C-alpha cells in the first residue's frame, strides 16, 4: 500500500502492539528474575516498589544448588526428557511416514484412533498407567517416565509429522527409488532431510512438554532422589504454607533455561521451509 511504510504509521500499527505484547509475555520472566535476585529481607517489604531491584544477591541460587537436591533433579529431568523425546520422535517419524505415505486398510482409522488417544486427559490416564508401571516394576525409575510420556507425545508428534510428510512431493522419493534407493534409504536420505523443520518442531514440542511435565513425574517418580525439577521444586521448596520464594523463583529460572535454549537454537529451522525448488514453482 502506498504510504503505509511511513515511520509513524509503522510505529502505531506494528511496533506499539508488538511492544505491548512482548511486555505482557515477558513480565512473568522478569518477575521470576527479580524475585530470585532479591535479598530475603526485601521480598515481603511492601514499602518499596516491588517492580525493580534495589539490592541484589545470588544467595537463592547458591542455596538452591548447594542446600537442595536441585542438581540431581536437573539431571533426572534431562535424562527423562531426552529419553522420552528420542523415543517419541523415532516412533512418530515412522508412524507419521506410514500414515502420511501409505494407503492401507485401516490407515485412516488408525490415524484417528491415535489422535483420540491424545484427547484422554493425563489426570484420568495416570490411574491405569500407574498399575502398568507398578506391574512392570518400573516405579521410581527413569523408565517409568520415559515410557509414559510418549502416551501424550507420540499422538501429537506423529500427526504433526504426518502433515509435514504429506507436503513433500511424492515424486521425490519415487525418483529416489528408481535411482536405486530402497524405501528406507529414500526416506532417510531424501524425505527426512526435507522434513527437518517438521521433525524439529515435533522435537521441541516433545522436549518442552517432557521437561515441564508434573503429574506423571509426581506419581511415578516422585520419591527421594528421583524427583524432576517441577516435582522437586514444589515438594522441597514449599514447606506446608511456607513458600521459599527466592529459591522457588531461582529454580524456575534455571528450569526454563534449557527450553529457552532449545527454542533459540532451532528457531530458524523451525520457521524455514526447505522444500523450495524441489518441483516447479
Amino acid at each position, binding site marked *: 500500500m502506498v504510504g503505509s511504510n511511513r515511520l509513524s504509521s509503522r510505529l502505531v500499527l506494528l511496533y506499539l502492539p508488538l511492544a505491548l505484547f512482548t511486555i505482557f509475555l515477558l513480565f512473568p520472566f522478569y518477575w521470576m528474575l527479580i524475585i530470585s535476585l532479591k535479598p530475603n529481607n526485601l521480598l515481603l517489604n511492601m514499602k518499596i516498589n516491588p517492580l525493580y531491584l534495589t539490592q541484589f544477591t545470588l544467595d537463592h541460587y547458591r542455596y538452591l544448588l548447594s542446600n537442595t537436591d536441585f542438581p540431581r533433579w536437573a539431571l533426572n529431568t534431562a535424562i527423562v526428557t531426552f529419553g522420552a523425546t528420542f523415543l517419541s520422535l523415532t516412533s512418530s517419524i515412522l508412524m507419521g511416514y506410514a500414515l502420511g505415505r501409505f494407503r492401507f486398510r485401516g490407515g485412516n482409522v488408525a490415524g484417528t484412533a491415535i489422535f483420540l488417544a491424545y484427547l484422554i486427559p493425563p489426570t484420568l490416564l495416570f490411574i491405569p498407567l500407574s498399575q502398568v508401571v507398578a506391574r512392570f516394576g518400573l516405579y521410581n525409575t527413569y523408565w517409568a517416565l520415559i515410557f509414559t510420556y510418549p502416551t501424550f507425545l507420540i499422538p501429537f508428534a506423529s500427526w504433526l509429522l504426518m502433515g509435514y510428510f504429506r507436503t513433500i512431493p511424492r515424486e*521425490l522419493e519415487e525418483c529416489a527409488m*528408481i535411482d536405486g534407493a530402497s524405501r528406507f534409504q529414500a526416506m532417510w536420505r531424501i524425505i527426512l532431510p526435507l522434513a527437518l523443520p517438521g521433525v524439529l518442531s515435533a522435537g521441541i514440542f516433545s522436549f518442552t512438554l517432557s521437561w515441564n511435565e508434573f503429574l506423571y513425574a509426581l506419581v511415578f517418580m516422585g520419591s527421594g532422589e528421583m524427583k524432576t525439577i517441577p516435582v522437586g521444586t514444589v515438594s522441597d521448596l514449599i514447606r506446608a504454607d511456607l513458600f521459599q520464594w527466592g529459591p522457588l523463583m531461582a529454580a524456575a529460572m534455571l528450569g526454563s533455561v534449557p527450553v529457552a535454549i532449545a527454542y533459540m537454537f532451532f528457531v530458524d529451522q523451525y520457521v524455514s521451509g526447505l522444500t523450495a*525448488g*524441489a518441483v*516447479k514453482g
Partner: protein
Amino acid sequence: MAQVIYDHVTKRFDGVIAVNDLTLEVKDGEFLVLVGPSGCGKTTALRCLAGLEEVSSGDIIIGDRVVTHIPPKDRDIAMVFQNYALYPHMTVYENMAFGLKLRKMPKQEIDRRVKEVAEMLGIQDLLNRKPRQLSGGQRQRVALGRAIVREPQVFLMDEPLSNLDAKLRVQTRGELIKLQRRLGVTTIYVTHDQVEAMTMGHRIAVMNQGVLQQLDTPENLYDHPANLFVATFIGSPAMNIFPARVVTGEGAVRLVAGDVTLESPAEQRGRLAEYANREVLVGIRPEDLIVQPGQVGEDRHLRLPVEIVEPLGSETLVHLRGPVGTLIAKADPHVHFSPGELASVRVKIEHLHAFDPQTELALF
C-alpha cells in the same frame, strides 16, 4: 539397452480399471510415445513399468528379464518426472551423482560421468547450484542429466516438457530427439500433446480409457487411423466427421449427406457396398478439403457458405457450413475469405475415411 514388453498388463485401482489388458512391445533403442487424453491410463502404464505401481495382472519384461515383481531400484531404468523431482537439499552435482553413489560406484567414475553428461547438456556451470537457484529450463536439463548419467536400459519420461514455456518446449523437443537418437537408449515417453507425439516418436501408442487404440508410426497413425478415436485425436484441427448414407446403384457407390453426394473412392466401393442403405461416419482431414472463395471451379465442386475465418499466419482455417454440421478446411493464407460468402470446395475423394457407426472401427 533393451526391449520392453507389456504382456496383457491390467491395473485396477479400487475397482476402476486404469490400464486394461495392455500388450505392447517396444523395440531396443526405440523412442515410443504413449499418448492419449488425461485419464487414459498412459501415466499409470508408465508407472507400472517403473515399478511404482504393482500390476493387477499380466507381466512386464525389460530386456530378457521379467520385472513384474522386482522393486524399482533393481529395474535399471531412469525416469524424468513432469515436475522434475529434483532433490532440493542437494546441489546439481549431488542430484546427478545420487543414483551412482547408491550403486557404490568409485568416486572418480562418478565424477567423470557427471561432468561428461553435464557438458553434453550445457549445465557444467550449474553443478554447485541448488535446484531452487535454477530456471525451469535448467531444472529440466538437470532432471534429464540425472537420468542420462545412470546409463540405464530404459528411459521413462512423464510429460517432461509440459512445464516449459512454448518456445523452450519446441527447442527442448528437438534436443531431446537428437539426444535419444545419439544415445540409442530405449525411451518411453508419455504425453497428452499429439504434436509432441507426432514429432518425437518412432512409433506412437494411442490410449483411451485404459485401452490401447493403435500402435503405429506417426505417418500411418495419421493416414490410416484404426478407429474414430485415433482419427479425431491425432491431427489439429481434428478430422471432420459427419454421417452419410451409402447409396448403391447404376454401378456406382455414393455417400449422401444432406444435399451433398460424394462418389466413393474407387478402390473402396466393395467395402462400402456392404453398408448399402445404411449410415457410415465419413472422415476428411481439413487439408483434404480444397477451398477457393467464390463459385469458381468445376460443377462437381461443392458450394458451401463460409462461417468463420481463422487466419493463423502459415495457413488459414475456414469454417464451412456443411450439409451436416461444420466442416473445417485448411486454406492458403494468401487467399481472402469472407464470412457469409460462398466458397467452392473440392473433396480429395482418395483421402476419405469411413467408420462403422456402431464399432467406430475404420472401414478405410
